[in-house]
């Protein structure tokens, strides 16, 4: 049975395109203040406060080892496992409908969508937390 199409928003991180699944909890905003956390993996920048939510900021560029030019200052907020996380991005772009696929690569992100025959990886919190070794319940 074919997978159903889902809606994604395309985001730009240092010139690289990624997709964020659209859900009721997603939100885009400019980051005002960041509170860094001691004894924390460098891929987690810190916390910010937005709309009554405490958001854990994930350094998207560092996680995916992109050449950062410190030009990313927006946040794509998502809810995962009752907590809020923010992907640091440069900008948000089009909304697309696509089928979610899964690759068998060793990459952190295994899910992707095809947009104009181009593979765009889907930003997922779970494998990133697992990679940083923070997923222990």
């Amino acid at each position: 049975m074919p997978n159903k199409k889902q809606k994604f928003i395309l985001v730009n991180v240092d010139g690289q395109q990624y997709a964020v699944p659209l859900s009721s909890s997603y939100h885009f905003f400019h980051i005002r203040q960041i509170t860094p956390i001691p004894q924390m993996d460098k891929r987690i920048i810190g916390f910010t406060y937005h709309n009554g939510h405490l958001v854990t900021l994930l350094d998207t560029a560092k996680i995916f080892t992109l050449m950062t030019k410190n030009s990313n200052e927006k946040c794509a907020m998502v809810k995962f496992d009752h907590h809020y996380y923010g992907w640091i991005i440069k900008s948000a772009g089009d909304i697309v409908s696509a089928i979610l696929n899964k690759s068998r690569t060793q990459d952190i992100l295994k899910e992707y969508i095809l947009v104009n025959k181009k593979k765009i990886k889907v930003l997922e919190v779970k494998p990133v937390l697992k990679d940083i070794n923070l997923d222990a319940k």
Partner: protein
Amino acid sequence: MPNNKYKTFYIDTSVEQLKKLSNLFLAWEKHSKDLYLIEDILRITHSMKGAAATMEYNKTVKVLHLAEDIFYALLHKELELSEKVLDILFKTLQVLDKNIKNIISQGKEANLDIHIKSLKQVIKNNATKTKTKIKKQARASLSYITHSGSDLYTPLEIVVPTDRLDKLQRIVDSLFVAKMNLQCLISHDPDSTKSCLEIDRIVADLRREVKELRTMSLAQIFSPLPRLVRELAKAEKKNVNLIIEDNGLSLDKTILDDMIDIIVQLLRNAMVHGITTKQKDGQIIVQTEIVNDSVKIVVADNGQGIDWQEILAIALKKKIITTAQSKEMKLSDIKQLIFDGHFSSSSTTSIRGGRGVGLSLVQKRVKDLRGSVVVDSSKNKGARFTILLPLPVSVLWSLVFQIGNFYLALPNASVIKIIRLPKLIVFDKQTNFVHKNIKYSLISLAKVLEIKKLSIVTQNLAIIKHDNKKILLPLPQITKEEDIIIKRTPKVLKNNKIVSFVAVAADGRPVLVLNVDYLFD
């Protein structure tokens, strides 16, 4: 097909009604001649039946209908309240509990056929006495029963899901942060300050109301415990009296779920391993009280107690400890053995000392809540578990400051005194400081936070106390005292030792609340 739209409402309401029924049953067991209690039971059963019918849970309707028949027969003295009848009615509660759990987990009713047969059997045995006519009349008049002689009967309540309350709390917290921010901005304008004071009052009222909404009485939360003990006592063939002293407390829902799980686990332990079958005067006491900023829970029994030498022997036998280790162990170390996960999973149910089942879970739960658990017991003198859990607070009066890039808070409750030095001092590599002829250990936050080449130049020192030890903490020259709003602890802080939790300061910025215990380590 049951209406899914109202399923959550049905479940929440049924859970509450089952709790009330349980209370009424227990009261009725003691005061079986109080017909008003049966009327209350009938009213709730009837209401549950109506709700189940709306949801098209037909087997549930059947169970409740048959239970109603029995209550009518009892009300009209057509049926005698025997031990057997009482047991089947308590069993009905168990079955209905299980049924609700089934509806939650699998979306459908449990198999109720066997219980329906049992209920029919009770009615059949008394068929000659039970008159349908009376039943019908009584059913018709049920809605008009106005008396609520029993204190246990409460009027209709609206069930609000906790996530909706959380959302409301979040909005009110945001309003509070915005108000604090506004106060900072307009503090020099008298007119604005006046308006701000009015807003302050409104926000305070709103926060208090939301807090009330989130609070539940322990009496309500503890209501299933007597039934649980009754069932366990029956299964274990033991004679136990449960005494609950809740001191009229009401607590926030966030702590109650964990708290009740811990108490149930300790009750089971006391019941299974503490109280013996030979005892005629078995007694378990559950006490709760507020001590400073914590809730103190005591679960004590007058059972056979714990033989610590036997515990030590088991730990050796199970290779949890070595012989060399056992020789160096103090009583406090041996006491910790019963909370060891390996000890708990070992088969120790048949021996006097073996009370370990589930205790590792209790300790884990308590630790997760940043609390402590202590056990006092000796052979033949019962056991007493004392648990201290910090009360969930949403606003914390704290010292807020910045060191390097880190935005930090120190709860005022952990500060004994702030020393204001006559002049600025550079705190760099000193490890001690003498103030008024008292030598204090000095803690460098720069060192704790692993910030290299950072000296704190300040006149402010905080004296912090923990377990009879005192330390001095140099605070940055700019340190504010303010209310901070505590937020749900993010998952990424799970293994962080420096930070206890995160809050939001008046400027809307997240602030990391320092773990005072870690500073003493």
